[in-house]
């Protein structure tokens, strides 16, 4: 094993001298307290190490010893429902052992060593195996069957299946003879280096929507399963609320939520709320399909840097089982700042705004680990990545936002003015985009929903409204012709009745595809009828006075997903009110 002696300590970055045998990115232990570190630079006999714990009190001369392995995570049954820190230490175990504060020097194993799992074994002696072949299945939670996989790189034949009534993660489940004729014991878990992506056969095109139940997202700026999206927004624009909503409602099999350098109270909210929330499809607790990573802003900056890798490695592991995984990182800006802080402490030459020159390639390395892939010849899995970005001062030209834009295809811009007016989700329709819309339109069309034409009409109305608003700013609404004022009213209906969604209302928080369609349709229908009457010479104020006009703005919170037939009644009322008007005016 490699080793060294500490020479310089200044915060989380330390330098060791007289090192030998240490590899780049190797996990090391420092001193008697065995603080965890990672080698991030080697220069002759000097190694730069980032320490994942507080370094106060550590002095030069302290011993550094290598572990021989890169920084890795444990992958096996027992991950779901857990909360980890940035380097996969289980926070619940730490709390039991150390109390309310996190002190250093405690490294509990991520997976419980005592818990026994019943495995439903699929393989038998002499079966041929390749990486990701399913050895057996464990019912990890009532929602997730955890598939025990042949680890990457192992090809061969089953020599022996070891049958036990219950397996602990360290128990051997089968013995494989690999291509070189060597015996390899496969356990319930294996480890995988966080900075290395897990192999797969090939990438596949996107076909299915990651349905989120959020109208502005699904109908207007959708994300595909296996797609990558970013949510930029200054503080107070509702990034976290949007991320929470996605974590709650997205129709992925597994959700991995990374609180990267975020607020402690927000994490507390997630930890408290998620177990109580019900998955809208299964009715089970959300925690039965969720893994949380909590590395709040006051926890070591180095662990914040690695937290997104820890998260995405776990995501890839569940993808390899054939699941659709959605990973949310809140916030990638905090991660980039960690990168900058570490780079600054290493005295690297800064590029744009103090960020290291490799910021772009690191971001690409992260987002490119998302995707829909063929895992084995008959299995497909996906990792969708949704990264929040917090541009300082709301400036979208800053490096993290502009680099992120290069690597994502869906961009949900959170707008400060919308947030100020309490229009939530504050996703701007002028600056956001989705590169998946075309691929996903087929999914809607299979449900007989003509999403393309609906979307075009919505976007048209909203774009015209933006122009008209500029004119109104100068001359007042009264100066516009009635036809254009109607466009403003239509846009108002779309904004307040459709795009706005109340995350706090149990009825409105999640909106089914049918409900989204019916809401859109009824709003556009209203516009058409109004336009027709206007052309017949009816004054606009009469139309706006219709009780149905303000009622349409409330249908989101008033009609439940399962009461789709109420839309028929609503549509009838629209028709009736218009008919009455028409008769009144001949």
């Amino acid at each position, binding site marked *: 094993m490699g080793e060294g002696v500490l020479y*310089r*300590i*200044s*915060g989380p970055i330390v330098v060791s001298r007289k090192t030998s045998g240490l590899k780049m990115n190797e996990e090391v232990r420092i001193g008697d307290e065995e603080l965890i570190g990672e080698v991030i630079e080697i220069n002759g006999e000097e190694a730069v190490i980032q320490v994942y714990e507080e*370094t*106060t*009190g*550590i*002095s*030069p001369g302290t011993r550094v010893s290598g572990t021989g392995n890169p920084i890795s995570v444990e992958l096996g049954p027992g991950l779901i429902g857990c909360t980890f820190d940035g380097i996969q230490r289980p*926070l*619940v175990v730490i*709390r039991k052992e150390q*109390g*309310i*504060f*996190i002190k250093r020097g405690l490294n509990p194993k991520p997976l419980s060593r005592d818990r026994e799992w019943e495995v439903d074994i699929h393989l038998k002696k002499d079966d041929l195996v390749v990486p990701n072949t399913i050895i057996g299945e464990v019912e990890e939670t009532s929602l997730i069957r955890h598939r025990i996989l042949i680890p990457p790189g192992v090809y061969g034949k089953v020599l022996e299946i070891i049958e036990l009534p219950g397996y602990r993660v360290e128990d051997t489940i089968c013995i494989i003879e690999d291509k070189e004729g060597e015996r390899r014991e496969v356990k319930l878990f294996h480890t995988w280096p966080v900075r290395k992506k897990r192999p797969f056969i090939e990438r596949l095109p996107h076909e299915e929507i990651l349905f989120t139940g959020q109208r502005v997202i699904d109908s207007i700026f959708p994300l595909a399963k296996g797609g990558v999206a970013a949510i930029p927004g200054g503080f*107070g624009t509702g990034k976290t609320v949007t991320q929470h909503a996605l974590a709650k409602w997205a129709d992925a099999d597994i959700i991995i939520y990374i*609180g990267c*350098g975020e*607020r*402690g*109270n*927000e*994490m*507390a*909210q997630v*930890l*408290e709320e998620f177990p109580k929330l019900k998955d809208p499809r299964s009715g089970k607790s959300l925690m039965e399909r969720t893994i949380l990573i*909590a590395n*709040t*802003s*006051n926890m070591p*900056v180095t662990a914040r840097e690695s937290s997104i890798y820890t998260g995405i490695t776990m995501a890839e592991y569940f993808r390899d089982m054939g699941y659709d995984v959605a990973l949310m990182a809140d916030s990638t800006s*905090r991660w980039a*700042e960690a990168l*900058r*802080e570490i*780079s*600054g*402490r290493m005295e690297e030459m800064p590029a744009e*705004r*103090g960020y290291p020159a490799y910021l772009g390639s690191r971001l690409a390395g992260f987002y490119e680990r998302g995707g829909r892939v063929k895992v084995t010849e008959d299995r497909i899995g996906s990792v969708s990545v949704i990264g929040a970005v*917090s541009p*300082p*001062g*709301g*400036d979208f030209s800053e490096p993290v936002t502009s680099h992120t834009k290069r690597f994502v295809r869906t961009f949900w811009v959170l707008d400060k003015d919308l947030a*100020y*007016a*309490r229009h939530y989700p504050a996703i701007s329709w002028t600056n956001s985009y989705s590169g998946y819309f075309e691929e996903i339109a087929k999914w809607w069309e299979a449900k007989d929903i003509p999403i393309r034409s609906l979307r075009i009409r919505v976007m048209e109305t909203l774009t015209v409204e933006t122009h008209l608003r500029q004119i*109104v*700013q*100068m001359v*007042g609404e*009264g100066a516009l012709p009635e036809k254009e004022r109607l466009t403003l009213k239509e846009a108002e209906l779309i904004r*307040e009745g459709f795009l706005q969604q109340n995350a*706090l209302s149990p009825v409105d928080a999640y909106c089914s595809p049918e409900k989204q369609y019916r809401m859109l349709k009824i709003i556009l229908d209203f516009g058409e009828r109004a336009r027709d009457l206007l052309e017949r010479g009816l004054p606009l104020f009469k139309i706006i006075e219709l009780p149905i006009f*303000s009622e349409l703005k*409330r249908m989101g919170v008033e009609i439940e997903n399962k009461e789709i037939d109420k839309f028929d009644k609503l549509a009838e009322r629209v028709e009736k009110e218009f008919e009455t008007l028409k008769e009144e005016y001949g």
Partner: protein
Amino acid sequence: MDSIYHKRHIGAQELTGPILIVEGVENVGFGELVLIEQGDINRLGRVLEVAGNRAVCQVFAGTSGIDREKVRIRFTGSPMTLPVSEEMIGRVFDGLGRPIDGCGEVIGEEERDVNGNPLNPDAREYPRENILTGISAIDGLTTLIRGQKLPIFSGAGLPHNEIAAQVVNQARISKEEDFIIIFAAMGIKADDADFFMRRFEEGGALSRLVTFINLADSPSVERLITPRCALTAAEYLAFDKGNHVLVIMTDLTNYCEALREVASAMGEVPSRKGYPGYLYSDLATLYERTGRVKGREGSITQIPILTMPNDDITHPIPDLTGYITEGQIVLSRELYQKGIYPPIDIMSSLSRLMKDGIGEGRTRKDHPDLYSQLYASYSRVQRVRSLASIIGEDELSEVDRNYLKFGKDFEGKFLNQDKTESRSIEETLNRGWEVLMNLPESELVRLSKEEIEEYRSK
């Protein structure tokens, strides 16, 4: 004493600003406390970096007067600690936590590392109980929650001190119980410190006050320790002794300046506006020492005050603060000039935790919708005002003129109140309804028909 201070050294290698560099030392730990002595000079410092036998120390009171050859440096082997006990209540300390009120040393029940440790996110309890301050703009629209960190973003000359003092004097947990107030002053003027003391005395808060004072003319680097002492005391009083603690820290801008001073003396690579790249992480280690803990009685609520240089909310200090704290109360120079007190700019202020602390059983049933409506309507007022400034008020539609009337009433009757006036939540909400009645019912889309009926019937 010498046995404790096992690592002694005479003479320094280099002195620059607050930095003192010693060579030829062994076994010095990163972050440990150092004592700097020379004749009658007795100063404290901290190790910022060790490399081999060279230690870079930050001297809190600066290096002025220090003789490179004669200075004696003692390494204590432990980080800076603060003796904590309930005896601290009612006492006044300097910026490093040493008593300056002439009442002698505090006998600590325990010595605590002032840097603290991060709270385990799993041990936190999500805060839900509100703190009513008697200020309409806060209680109604940016409700403060026990366990929240809600900063006041202010500008030079704006009445942030008055607002903070009013909150301290009017906030109550219940009729019987009061908050313990911890006041941490960092680089503020003696006048301002006196003002706070006077207001605390008027409000009868002195007996439940712990004060840490670093004035504008006190050593600037000492400021880096002041909030840490205050928060160490807060954690002890809240989580060990079960008190509800309200921490007022002012002025964070001075704290950040001191951080920049040290970073540049160390020759570190600067980030935005010369502040160090770790400003966010450093501020987080202060702000995050707030909250509630599962199974423990107490809570820590923070109201940090910072003055935005040039009233610029995108300046790194308010910007990074906003990303850590749960909202912000922003003061507006425009409202202040109109004579409105408190001049809180509702449009850019926000309390992220309020949604769970208001409504039925907490404040009043109509509060959430009323809040949403007031925001939406006031946001329209801004647009109407800019329109009116172009085309003139007479050209506005009737609805728009109603909005102007609403805007005026909202500022004059809802926001505006006396510096010692404490309004009940009932009164605040009723005033909200009253000013909304300037608008036709069709404009009140965030309120349900039933709510409007119910209010009308009163």
